[in-house]
């Protein structure tokens, strides 16, 4: 299940700059949104890892099929770009070129099931595999309660999941059900890419900052009497070191007042495992569902 960054998330960056940003973020590659005059030879020569391609419209299907084959990645188009009766012809064009076309569908069980049925009806011949489904997943606006059924209905036709959010928008989407979607995809052994793209253009500055952010670790000053630490704005990758750094800066008898956006019970278990027995007292003073506060007193 590779993770890819859509070029739509960083339109100001060059292909090479996006590749660098992906590597720093540990992302496995990019989704390349084709523009008029995209130089496919230059894309290939750049060494950028293109895991998916995006086209604004179907345009000339043969040209799109050739681009998909050339880049070795499936191309997705928006939900309304393809009429059902065009499917057999498109399957032939893409199969002949060696490309793959993924047709967009929102988190809508009926719409996904209908498209999967139409793809099944193309028959088991080789051409049918040249078409598939691109799931346009919008946690900020969609109800995700049906996600498990959508994964099941799409079945082997699911070729890409385009997550409109994640990255810097992840916190705003907390509690919307993204975790359940990922669980269903994992248990269905989905192995295709998940593409991160901004939910709306207004989010672009946040994406740029997110892509440029360096890992950081903040530690408290040694010998502190009281430390107030809100890690909600600290990226998950930096949280453990930040919290342990603050805890270890406490002088005996002092208390760390911790604010987090998830159940901090894992921190209590971590302290039990890493600190001497009886050397601290952990109290949860606010127990969710959106904000948790804990007090850790060093003995």
């Amino acid at each position: 299940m590779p993770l890819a960054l859509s070029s739509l998330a960083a339109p100001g960056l060059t292909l090479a700059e996006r590749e660098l940003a992906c590597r720093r973020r540990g992302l496995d590659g990019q989704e390349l949104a084709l523009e008029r005059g995209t130089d496919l030879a230059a894309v290939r020569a750049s060494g950028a890892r293109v895991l998916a391609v995006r086209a604004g419209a179907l345009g000339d299907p043969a040209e799109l099929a050739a681009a998909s084959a050339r880049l070795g990645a499936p191309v997705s188009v928006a939900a309304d770009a393809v009429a059902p009766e065009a499917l057999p012809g498109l399957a032939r064009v893409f199969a002949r070129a060696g490309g793959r076309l993924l047709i967009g569908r929102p988190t809508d069980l009926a719409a996904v099931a209908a498209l999967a049925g139409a793809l099944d009806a193309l028959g088991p011949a080789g051409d049918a595999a040249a078409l598939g489904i691109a799931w346009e997943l919008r946690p900020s606006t969609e109800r995700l309660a049906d996600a498990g059924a959508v994964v099941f209905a799409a079945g082997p036709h699911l070729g890409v999941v385009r997550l409109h959010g994640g990255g810097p928008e992840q916190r705003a989407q907390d509690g919307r059900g993204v975790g359940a979607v990922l669980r269903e995809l994992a248990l269905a052994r989905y192995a295709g890419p998940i593409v991160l793209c901004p939910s709306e253009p207004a989010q672009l500055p946040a994406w740029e900052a997110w892509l440029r952010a360096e890992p950081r670790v903040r530690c408290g000053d040694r010998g502190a009497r009281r430390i107030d630490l809100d890690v909600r704005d600290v990226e998950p990758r930096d949280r453990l070191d930040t919290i342990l750094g603050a805890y270890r800066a406490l002088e005996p008898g002092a208390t760390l007042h911790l604010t987090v956006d998830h159940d901090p019970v894992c921190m209590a278990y971590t302290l039990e495992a890493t600190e001497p027995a009886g050397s601290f007292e952990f109290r949860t003073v606010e127990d969710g569902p959106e904000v948790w506060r804990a007090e850790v007193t060093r003995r």
Partner: protein
Amino acid sequence: MSSIDLDIRIVPPREKHPTIFKTFDALAPGEGFTLINDHDPAPLRHQFDATRGGQFGWTYVERGPVVWRVLIEKSR
């Protein structure tokens, strides 16, 4: 058959651990999944020890510095 991969990096903070434990609980004995994360999930392991001690295997497949992969298996 491909493996079960759970990329927890794109799951929002308060959904992360519940998602992981629900995935683990859905496994059959002897099955496992690969957890992918952007930091060492050591706190999670301590939580596994405390709540599912002796019922799981924990094998690092990749140890940073950018991505961590852990194979978490349900004991037979």
